[in-house]
């Protein structure tokens, strides 16, 4: 059975306050049956240096991706993974991670493609939990195996593929990368590896709103009024827009997808996970360079 939602007043302005929990709420509910906490980090070893007591590790790179096809695991693979972690279909799954929850948001998006009914993010992620001096442990949880059902992944509502983005040109697109990546001056994040795009720039018509605009200093999400100012005031989105978000491989844009879909409540937001590593290398697709959309 799903756990109660976090009644924290600061979440109540968001369109879907039940998608977030605070560190205080999580600390109170850690022992509750029906809850599984999962850590998803950029660094594959960070969990092993210490994690929230009872949390399982969920690695975006080695577990959520199919090892052969450039795609996520299928329904059977997801069921196997969730069962191994002791997660049931009726589990309240709380995800958190490093880097302002990039990878946790990515994992949440993938879980949502499989329609997991109750999956939430820990607002502020690993950084806030640690900054508050809350406990971390290297003890590995002993969760009994569960029997997660095989559910087909539904890519039709929340995920965009390259050709869908081509036919979307002219409608709202948000590029969440750094300004240098957007203009084409840089082919990768500042201080990050070149991940193999042969051209720099952005998808024609995309507005640049770096993902980090949505995060406050303590890694929590900004209040709804500020988010509205950024995405509607500055970037010109409207709540009924059909929006596609993208970045480099789809992880930073999962963070923005979460903001637009759950915090601002836009019904039609898709994440283009092929992102710039696909678009910037594709034969025959147009790009735009420079500061203009």
């Amino acid at each position, binding site marked *: 059975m799903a756990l109660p939602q976090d009644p924290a007043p600061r979440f109540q302005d968001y369109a879907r306050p039940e998608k977030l929990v605070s560190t205080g709420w999580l600390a109170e509910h850690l022992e509750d049956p029906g809850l599984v906490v999962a850590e998803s980090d950029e*660094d594959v070893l960070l969990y*092993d240096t210490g994690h929230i007591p009872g949390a399982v590790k969920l690695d975006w*790179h*080695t577990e959520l991706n199919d*090892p052969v096809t450039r795609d996520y695991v299928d329904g059977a693979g997801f069921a196997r993974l969730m069962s191994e972690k002791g997660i049931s279909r009726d589990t309240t799954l709380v995800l958190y991670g*490093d880097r302002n929850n990039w990878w946790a948001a990515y994992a949440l998006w993938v879980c949502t493609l499989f329609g997991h009914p109750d999956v939430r993010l820990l607002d502020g992620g690993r950084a806030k939990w640690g900054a508050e001096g809350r406990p971390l442990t290297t003890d590995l949880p002993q969760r009994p195996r569960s029997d997660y059902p095989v559910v087909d992944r539904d890519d039709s509502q929340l995920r965009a593929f390259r050709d869908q983005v081509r036919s979307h040109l002219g409608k709202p697109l948000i590029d969440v990368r750094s300004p240098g990546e957007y203009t084409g001056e840089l082919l990768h994040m500042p201080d990050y*590896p070149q991940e193999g795009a042969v051209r720099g720039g952005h998808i024609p018509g995309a507005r640049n709103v770096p993902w980090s605009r949505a995060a406050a200093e303590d890694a929590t999400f900004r209040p709804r009024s500020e988010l509205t100012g950024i995405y509607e005031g500055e970037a010109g989105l409207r709540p009924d827009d059909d929006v596609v978000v993208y970045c480099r491989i789809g992880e930073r844009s999962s963070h923005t997808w979460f903001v637009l879909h759950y915090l601002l409540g836009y019904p039609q937001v898709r994440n283009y996970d092929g992102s710039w590593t696909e678009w910037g290398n594709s034969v025959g697709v147009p790009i735009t360079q420079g500061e203009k959309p």
Partner: protein
Amino acid sequence: MTATTLGPRLQEVVDDFTGVGEQDRLALLLEFSAGLPPLPARYAEHRDRMEPVPECQSPLFLAVEVAADGTAHLFFDAPPEAPTTRGFASILQAGLDGLPADDILATPGEFSSQLGLTGLVSPLRLRGMAAMLARIKRQIRDQRG
């Protein structure tokens, strides 16, 4: 000369990794991570004297000193919240620090693929180690003029 051989110390590290099962390999990488020696003061207080390695997922800084006797000493710095990057640095430190510079130059650039970590850590993350080694070699060549 084509670089094809691992020195005995680096070979020992590779054998340590490939001699254990997959889960123990990650535990071993974590041990390496914890064992990365702290920086001497001349770098700890002067990070600007170190070279950043942007190919690593998390910030890593390295420095190389080629001594008069032709041996090379390696220094690395990466934050505790980047244990994988620290682990990679520590492997290079354990396998190469203090060796004759020529031996380091002869280390195959793709040796990281021999550690048995590709499936556990992902090829993307492993790229950082190859980049560190490439920069170490370049610094050695630069310093020797």
